[in-house]
C-alpha cells in the first residue's frame, strides 16, 4: 500500500512552476494518450495528430503560468490540443480550395485492434464516419464522460449546442450500428 496519495494535476502544475520539471513529465504521462486520441480523431491523420499532440504540450508548458488554480488540467490541455488541430485544419483548407478529404488512415494501430472486438470496431468505424462537429463532441464525451460543461469549454460552444450535437451524434451512431 502506498503511503502517499497520488498527486493531483494542480499539484503537478504547481510543482512544475516551482522549478520541478519532472512534475510536468508526469502530466505528459497522464494525458499523452488522451490528447493523442483527441488529435487523431479530429485530424484523421497519424502524423498530423502526432504534431498536434506535441504542439499542445509545448504550448501548455510555455503558458503554464496562465493555468488557473482549481481549473481542470484535462479540460485545459484538451482545449489547447483541439485549437491546435483547428488551426492546422484551417491552414490546410486555406491551401486547398476543395473540402478537406477524409485523409490518411484514422484506423487504430495494431495494438489497439487486438484490444477491440467486432462491436467495438463497428462503433469506431461509425464514429469515424460522423461529420466533424459530431465526431469531436463524441470523442470528448468518450474522454471526459458526462462533463458537458467541460466539453463546452474545450470546444468554446454553448452547453445547449454541445448537448444537441451529442444527441444527434448518438442518433447517427445508433442508426449506423443498426444498419451494420
Amino acid at each position, binding site marked *: 500500500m502506498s503511503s502517499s496519495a497520488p498527486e493531483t494535476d494542480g499539484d503537478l502544475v504547481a510543482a512544475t512552476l516551482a522549478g520541478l520539471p519532472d512534475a510536468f513529465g508526469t502530466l505528459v504521462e497522464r494525458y499523452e494518450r488522451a490528447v493523442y486520441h483527441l488529435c487523431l480523431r479530429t485530424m484523421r491523420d497519424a502524423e498530423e495528430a502526432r504534431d498536434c499532440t*506535441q504542439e499542445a504540450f509545448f504550448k501548455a508548458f510555455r503558458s503554464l503560468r496562465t493555468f488557473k488554480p482549481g481549473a481542470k488540467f484535462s479540460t485545459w490541455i484538451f482545449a489547447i490540443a483541439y485549437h491546435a488541430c483547428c488551426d492546422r485544419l484551417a491552414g490546410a483548407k486555406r491551401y486547398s480550395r476543395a473540402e478537406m478529404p477524409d485523409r490518411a488512415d484514422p484506423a487504430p494501430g495494431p495494438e489497439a485492434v487486438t484490444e477491440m472486438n467486432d462491436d467495438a470496431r463497428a462503433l469506431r468505424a461509425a464514429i469515424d464516419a460522423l461529420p466533424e462537429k459530431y465526431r469531436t463532441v463524441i470523442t470528448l464525451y468518450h474522454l471526459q464522460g458526462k462533463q458537458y460543461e467541460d466539453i463546452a469549454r474545450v470546444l468554446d460552444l454553448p452547453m445547449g449546442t454541445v448537448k444537441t450535437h451529442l444527441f444527434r451524434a*448518438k442518433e447517427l451512431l445508433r442508426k449506423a450500428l443498426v444498419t451494420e
Partner: protein
Amino acid sequence: MNDDLDDDLDRALFALPLDVPPPGLRESILRATIYAPVAIPSPFSTLETIGIGIALALAAWIAILCVVDHSVVLALGDVVTELVRALSDTQTLVWIGVGALTAAAFTIAGTSPRFPFNRRTS
C-alpha cells in the same frame, strides 16, 4: 427505453480503447519542454548587435588596409591629428559642453527626448 439504448451506447463508447500514441512521442514532447536547452539571452539588443557588427567590420577593414598599404597608416595619423586639433578648439569644446549640460538637464528633469528608434524595455 431510450435511456436503456443510451446506456448501451454509452457503455460501448466508454469501453472503446484510446488510440496508442506512436513510439517516441513522449520523449519528443519532453525534449521540447522540460529537457529543452535554455536559450541564453543576449546582453545586446538587435540594433546594438548590428552596430557592434558594423564597428568590428570597419575595424577589420581598416586593419587590413593598414597591413596592405602603409600610406593608409599615414593618412589615419593625419585624421587623428586633425581630430585632436578640432577637439582642442575652444568653440568645439563650448559646443560639447552645451550638449553635455543639455543631457544632464534632461536626466535631472527625468524626461528624455523621443527618438523614433527608442529601445524596447522588457
